[in-house]
């Protein structure tokens, strides 16, 4: 059996569940209904089948996840992905980090930002605006939520609007949730 990955990567791994997923041919109508609203996505099959053990939650969760990640207006797609990565790195969720680092790299057509984050897990080599986003998302994600007025004001000084800051709060919060499912219920395995 392959050992789980422990280092950050932008190559999307396989997600191996730690508990038995719902078997599709034995799924209830409620479970099928909850799974239907899920977009087809790389490696997400097993994950959705695991979450289908709680279909009522899954039913609300999928549109909420997509709404925060893909709604128009507010924070740009690439900065939304940066917020997702910041939280996922703090929580050491290798799978979530890989998926969203990969999307960030596709959207920006560069790998330097993610390579720099993987190297030292800080915002050391980012632009001021990227730094402000990364630091706020990281601090909001920590259990003690130790951000200060300066961290919020750094967002404003970097030119983020209220709409953008709210979206950053939402995406960082969303990954407080997603990391605690993905990293707890399964392991990232190199394909």
């Amino acid at each position, binding site marked *: 059996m392959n050992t789980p990955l422990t280092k950050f990567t932008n190559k999307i791994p396989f997600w191996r569940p730690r508990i038995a997923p719902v078997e599709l041919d034995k799924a209830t109508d409620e479970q099928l209904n909850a799974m239907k609203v899920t977009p087809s996505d790389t490696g997400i099959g097993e994950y959705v089948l695991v979450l289908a053990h709680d279909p009522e939650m899954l039913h609300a969760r999928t549109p909420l996840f997509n709404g925060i990640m893909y709604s128009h207006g507010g924070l740009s797609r690439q900065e939304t992905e940066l917020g997702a990565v910041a939280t996922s790195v703090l929580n050491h969720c290798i799978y979530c980090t890989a998926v969203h680092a990969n999307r960030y790299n596709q959207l920006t057509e560069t790998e330097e930002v993610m390579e720099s984050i993987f190297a030292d897990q800080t915002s050391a080599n980012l632009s001021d605006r990227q730094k402000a986003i990364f630091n706020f998302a990281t601090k909001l994600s920590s259990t003690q939520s130790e951000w200060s007025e300066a961290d919020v004001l750094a967002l404003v000084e970097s030119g983020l609007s*209220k709409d953008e800051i709210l979206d950053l709060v*939402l995406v960082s919060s969303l990954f407080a949730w997603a990391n605690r499912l993905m990293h707890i219920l399964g392991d990232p395995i190199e394909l």
Partner: protein
Amino acid sequence: MNDDWARESVLLTVAQVQQDSPIFDSLSLRSEIFKLSQQAHKACVNPENVGGFDQAERAAIASRICSLNNEDQLANYYADLIPQSSHAIQIINPSYSGDGDRRVEAILKHTDLVTASPKDASEVDIRKLEDSGISTEDIVRLSELIAFVNYEIRVVKGIRSMEQLL
């Protein structure tokens, strides 16, 4: 304008957001997110099928998670949902560890670990839940409960901070 989504949102109520708030326009742009968050909140604390965790126990675990995050207002909201006569009321205190009840001990140990230090959780922690008799379905229910309340806490704290500073 119909602001039911805001009135019905536990998160905005706990964060004490008023309709004349300087960030209300931004929140309105995301009204759909707050509606869906409220649906998820119901699925978390008051689902049709509670599985192995009754409503009082769910609210107690949620309140405990809030206290571990120093989020007192949301902790109080959840604590108020628990009947005083319920044994689950003890769970809200983070120093309570289950008092020899193997199932409750396993649940609280897992809740505290995943809340405070998710990066340190490993496969062993899932096996411990199984060994204490918790079913696969209930492991997912508990995971969603812990993860979702951690989401709620950050939304409340983030919005409160925006209101104060922007």
